[in-house]
Structure formats: structure tokens, C-alpha cells
């Protein structure tokens, strides 16, 4: 699937881009429908689904009881029997409720059955700190899904990739988790308008070219890193890559960049130990061992939960300053 129709674009927020993706896919395919808590008349707690219920009705934009195990399980059963559910889990911290259905059913059915079923289910969920929502509503847990076999995981950093990845996820016959960072819903960008536009799952995007150091970032940290790159321009030339897809992970694009720059910073909001960073770093090392001129730097949450108080939350959340410091340590 190539990036078709990127000629015409429109400026919109990440939130609008996701809603447009949902609208287009609901339009395109009658077998696609959505379910989640308060995604209907309430329009979603973070206002992503908005007025879709008015357009598509309550059979296709379904409010569920508060039972993530029940509706994620049901979505799995539904995906195995001919329909294509798109599920919203309000906060990714609630994924624990439905982890059994995710890990043992959704992720494993195709394989355990010797390929005798497809699993076209999409799970959209929100991640990240920054709004004072405290430890049970601010987590970044995508490493779990990226690690677990049988699941695909994407994590858009721009409005364009938010739209394109959401559409690709819905069209995929595999379970795809779309991790939406809640602090970038208002971030704007240029988004292709062609309804056939998708972003292939498994391809990273070089958002800014540079030659001194590579920053592989995800979600909110993509924008933050681009700002830093702009700031440093003239002094240090920073290449910024949006990972976009965590599993599969686009090793080639990362390696190519590191071969050019010789230096790598990995910036992702997940907790540092056993997080996204280590995998990216290890692949860089495995494939570009002799190109690396300095130790790879990790920018992430330092193995704490996200505390409530803004002072404390600021302290633990990775941001542009942390990316800048990491760059500084190796350039």
C-alpha cells in the first residue's frame, strides 16, 4: 500500500484527523462499526468521536456498558465471525481489564487455529501524562502490546500519521492497537484528503532530515523533538524520525539514519526500563554497530508512575528539554 494521494492536503488537528479517518472508514465499509464507553452522544471523553453518532447511528457507534473485558472479548469474537469492530478503550490504563481477551484470544486465535481465522479488530486508546490526571489515567503502556506476539501497535506523532495509521489499522485483517497521546489532540498538521490515503503499518517517517544526530521519537515527543531540532538548527543538525509503527518496527529507516549520523537518541514516554527505547537501541546496535560513534541515549519516564501534582508530573515526564540534553550529551 503506497502513500497515495498525498498531493492534496488540509490543515487539521490530530483529533480531527482521527475523526476523519473513522468517518471515511465507516463510510467505505458497512462491516466497520465502533464501540466504547460514551463514544456516542457524549462524543468520547476526549471528544475524538464527536458527532459521528449523528451521521452513523447507534448501531455503528455503540455505547457499551463499563466492561472492557466484555466488549474487547466480544470484538474479538465479532472479528472472527465477519465484522470489523473498532474499539475505543478510554484510557490505556484500563487495558488491564481486557488483557486476557487481548493476549490469549485476539493475539493468539489466528496462530492457534493454524491461520483459519482473520482478526480485523482495531483498538484505539489514549496514553500519556500532562493533564494532571494522576497515575491511573496517564500511563503509557504501549511497550506491552509491542512486545506481545500477534498484535500490531502504532503510535502516531502527527496529524497525517494519525489519520493514515487509523485507516490502515481499520483496513488491516490483524489486530492493531492505535495509541493516541492525549496531549497532541490539538496539534495541527497537513493531512492528505484523498480517502484512499493510508500510512502503511511498519514504516517510520523521517519528519526532518539532519546529519549530526538522529532522534527517533514517538507521539508527543515527535513534535517536541522537531521544535528542538529547529532551535538547534545552525549548531547541530538533527534528524527527527517518527517511529509511527512500534510493531512491526521499521529497522531499516532507523539504521539508515544512524549510519548517516552515527548518533541516536530514542525519545518515548514509556517507562525507561524494558521500554521502547531499549528495542530501538538494540536494533540500531545490531545493524549499525560499527557506525555508532557514541552511546545511544534514552529519553523516557524514569520508571515511576505519573504523579498528580504538576510539579511532580513535570519532573518525571520526558519533554523537549530532555531531548535537548540527550543530544547535548553526545554531540
Amino acid at each position: 500500500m503506497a502513500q497515495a494521494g498525498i498531493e492534496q492536503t488540509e490543515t487539521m488537528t490530530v483529533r480531527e484527523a482521527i475523526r476523519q479517518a473513522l468517518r471515511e472508514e465507516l463510510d467505505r465499509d458497512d462491516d466497520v462499526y465502533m464501540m466504547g464507553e460514551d463514544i456516542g452522544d457524549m462524543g468520547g471523553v476526549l471528544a475524538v468521536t464527536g458527532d459521528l453518532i449523528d451521521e452513523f447511528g447507534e448501531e455503528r457507534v455503540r455505547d457499551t456498558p463499563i466492561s472492557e473485558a466484555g466488549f474487547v472479548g466480544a470484538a474479538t469474537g465479532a472479528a472472527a465471525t465477519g465484522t470489523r469492530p473498532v474499539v475505543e478503550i478510554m484510557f490505556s490504563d484500563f487495558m488491564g481489564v481486557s488483557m486476557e481477551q487481548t493476549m490469549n484470544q485476539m493475539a493468539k486465535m489466528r496462530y492457534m487455529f493454524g491461520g483459519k481465522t482473520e482478526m480485523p479488530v482495531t483498538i484505539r486508546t489514549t496514553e500519556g501524562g500532562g493533564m494532571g490526571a494522576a497515575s491511573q489515567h496517564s500511563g503509557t503502556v504501549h511497550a506491552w502490546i509491542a512486545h506481545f506476539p500477534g498484535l500490531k501497535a502504532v503510535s502516531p506523532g502527527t496529524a497525517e500519521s494519525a489519520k493514515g495509521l487509523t485507516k490502515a489499522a481499520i483496513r488491516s485483517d490483524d489486530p492493531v492497537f492505535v495509541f493516541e497521546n492525549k496531549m497532541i489532540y490539538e496539534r495541527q498538521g497537513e493531512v492528505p484528503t484523498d480517502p484512499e490515503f493510508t500510512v502503511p503499518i511498519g514504516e517510520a517517517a523521517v519528519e526532518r532530515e539532519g546529519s549530526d544526530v538522529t532522534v527517533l521519537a514517538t507521539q508527543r515527543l515527535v513534535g517536541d523533538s522537531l521544535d528542538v531540532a529547529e532551535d538547534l538548527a545552525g549548531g547541530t543538525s538533527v534528524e527527527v524520525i517518527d517511529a509511527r509503527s512500534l510493531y512491526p518496527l521499521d529497522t531499516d529507516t532507523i539504521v539508515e539514519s544512524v549510519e548517516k549520523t552515527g548518533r541516536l537518541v530514542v525519545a518515548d514516554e514509556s517507562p525507561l526500563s524494558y521500554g521502547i527505547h531499549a528495542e530501538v537501541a538494540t536494533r540500531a546496535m545490531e545493524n549499525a554497530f560499527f557506525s555508532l560513534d557514541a552511546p545511544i541515549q534514552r529519553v523516557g519516564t524514569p520508571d515511576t508512575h505519573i504523579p498528580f501534582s504538576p510539579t511532580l508530573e513535570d519532573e518525571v515526564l520526558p519533554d523537549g528539554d530532555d531531548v535537548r540534553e540527550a543530544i547535548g550529551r553526545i554531540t
Partner: protein
Amino acid sequence: MSDYTLDSAEGRVEALRRMLTIRSFDETAGERFADGEIPGFVHLYVGEEAVGVGTCAALNDDDYIASTHRGHGHCIAKGLNPKYMMAELYGKADGYCNGKGGSMHIADVDAGMLGANGIVGAGPPMATGAALSIDYQGRDQVAVGFLGDGAVAQGQVHEAVNLASTWNLPAIFVIENNRYGEGTPVEQQHNVDNLSDTAAAHGIPGVTVDGMDVTAVAEAVEEARKRARAGDGPTMIEAETYRYRGHYEGDEQVYRDEDEVERWREQDPIASFKERLIDRGELTEAVFEEMQAEAQATIENALAYAKEADDPHPSEAYEDMFGDSVPEIERFAQQATARTDGGDH
């Protein structure tokens, strides 16, 4: 309609035949396991045949069932072929899951069998999901979720039943109360008189039937099916039954005595149904013996087939993870192919 319904003599005889086939399959599987020929875990259905057969007798061919870890009986009741089932138990390439699943994961989605399931309580959400697809696409089917007495304690069961009830989906939940979850008696897992009391929490009818009586089960499921198709939502059926063998093969069964097993055997679902059919003049002892021999022959053939079938090629371990291939796995697949092409390892 299924291949057999209990309102005709032929249907009843066919139901008896399926029960015999199940028993023969499972007794054979038990022996083969004891001899070390079948790897992993094997949970047998001996004694419980009336539940699976009674349920599937009341279903249409294209209705769905979502099974449990104790799934062989459900498979045969739903019409799956013992040859490919046995091949799966032997881990062979043309078992139902190409050897990837084994006893606990036999599935045939096209035949409406959504899989045995190694996770206690995982069937009901699956059934609710199938019922959702049915409802969403306006098809004339129902979906049955089987679960054990122990599984009733699983939260996902409640979530699934509540969702099906609230959305009024064409689902049926069949509790196979065989009195134990592994070695723990049902009384130590629940504090209710009947497990069908669970239905009250979700506002759906709950009935308890004699699970040793294939017609009692079939009648309850038939009614539930009508209800579901009439748009009146799900039903919960508890079938009281018993497993004669251990929880899994190899279980020492310290938790019960032989007497208890013997008392249940007196109500054997096959023997009692056979008697009834003979009483009604629909069967003779001679025909029964012939059927029994046939069932055994079917399973022996299945066994011979399974034993001779090919093992999967090692590189197949890397197939079926996704609809397309991902580089992370592809490189191992290539190595595996290269290894055997090169003949080494």
C-alpha cells in the same frame, strides 16, 4: 437445522451415534495419552456427552459454538471430523489447526466451531461477539458459549452475559456443571443453589436441566434458540452433569472417591438414552452394538490416520502470526527454510 434433531427417530439415533463417537474418541485419546503418544494436556468429556450433543442437536448447522478446554465433545457434536481432530491431538500438519493448537484449541470457524479454549471463561465473550456479528449483519443464527461450573466465577463471563443481555443479542450460555473445577468442588467455588441463578444478575432467564439427559438439554436449547431468534435476548442454561475421568489425563483424583463416580455412572447419558430408544422401539440392542462398533471403527481409522499423517515442517512455526508477514519473524522463517533445504540441523 442441524443434521439431527431430537424430534425424529432418525435424529435421536444420530444423537446417540454422536455420543458414542465422542466417548470412543475420548477413551481412545485417554489411552493414547497414557501411552505417551499425545503431548500436552488432554481434558476428556466422558460422561458429559449429552450436554454437547443435546445443545448442537438444537442448533442449525451455521450457528456458532464457542467451546472450552474440554472441547472434543463439542467438536463432534457440531459435526467436526474425528480424523482431523485426532491428527490435531497428534500435532500433525493436517490437523484442524495444522498442529499448532492441539486438544485445547481445536477450531473450525467455517463449521461454526469457534475453538476450544484454554482459558476458563473465555467462551462467553466469544459467543457474545459472534452474536454481535449475527445481529449487526441481520443473519438468522445464534451463538452458544459453553462454560464450566468453575468458569462461572470468571468476571469475563459476567461481562459477556451482561453485554449480550443489554444489547439483546442472540446468544445462549450453556453451563456444564460437572461438580468440579479441577479438584475443587462447586460448593467451594460458589455459594448458590443453582448456577443458573447467575442469570438473575443479568436479567435473563436461567434454567437448570438434567445434563445426563440429551433431550432435556436439547429442549432447553431449542427454547433458548427460539427466544434469541425472536429478538428476546440470551438465555442461561445450566446442565447438571459429571465427568467420569480426572480433570485432565493423569489427574490422581484425590478429591473424590470411586463411589461418587459410580453413582453418576448409573445415570449414564448413553446407556439411559439407549434404553429409552429401545423402549420406544426406535432401536434394538443389535443395532446399538453395531453403532458402537461403527463408532469405534471411526475412531480407529481416525487414529491410524493421525499416526501416519505428516508432521508440520519446522518453518510453519513462523506462519499464521499475521495476515501478512513482518520482518521480525520473516528472517527466522527464512532461516528455517534454508536449514531444511540445506538438510542440516
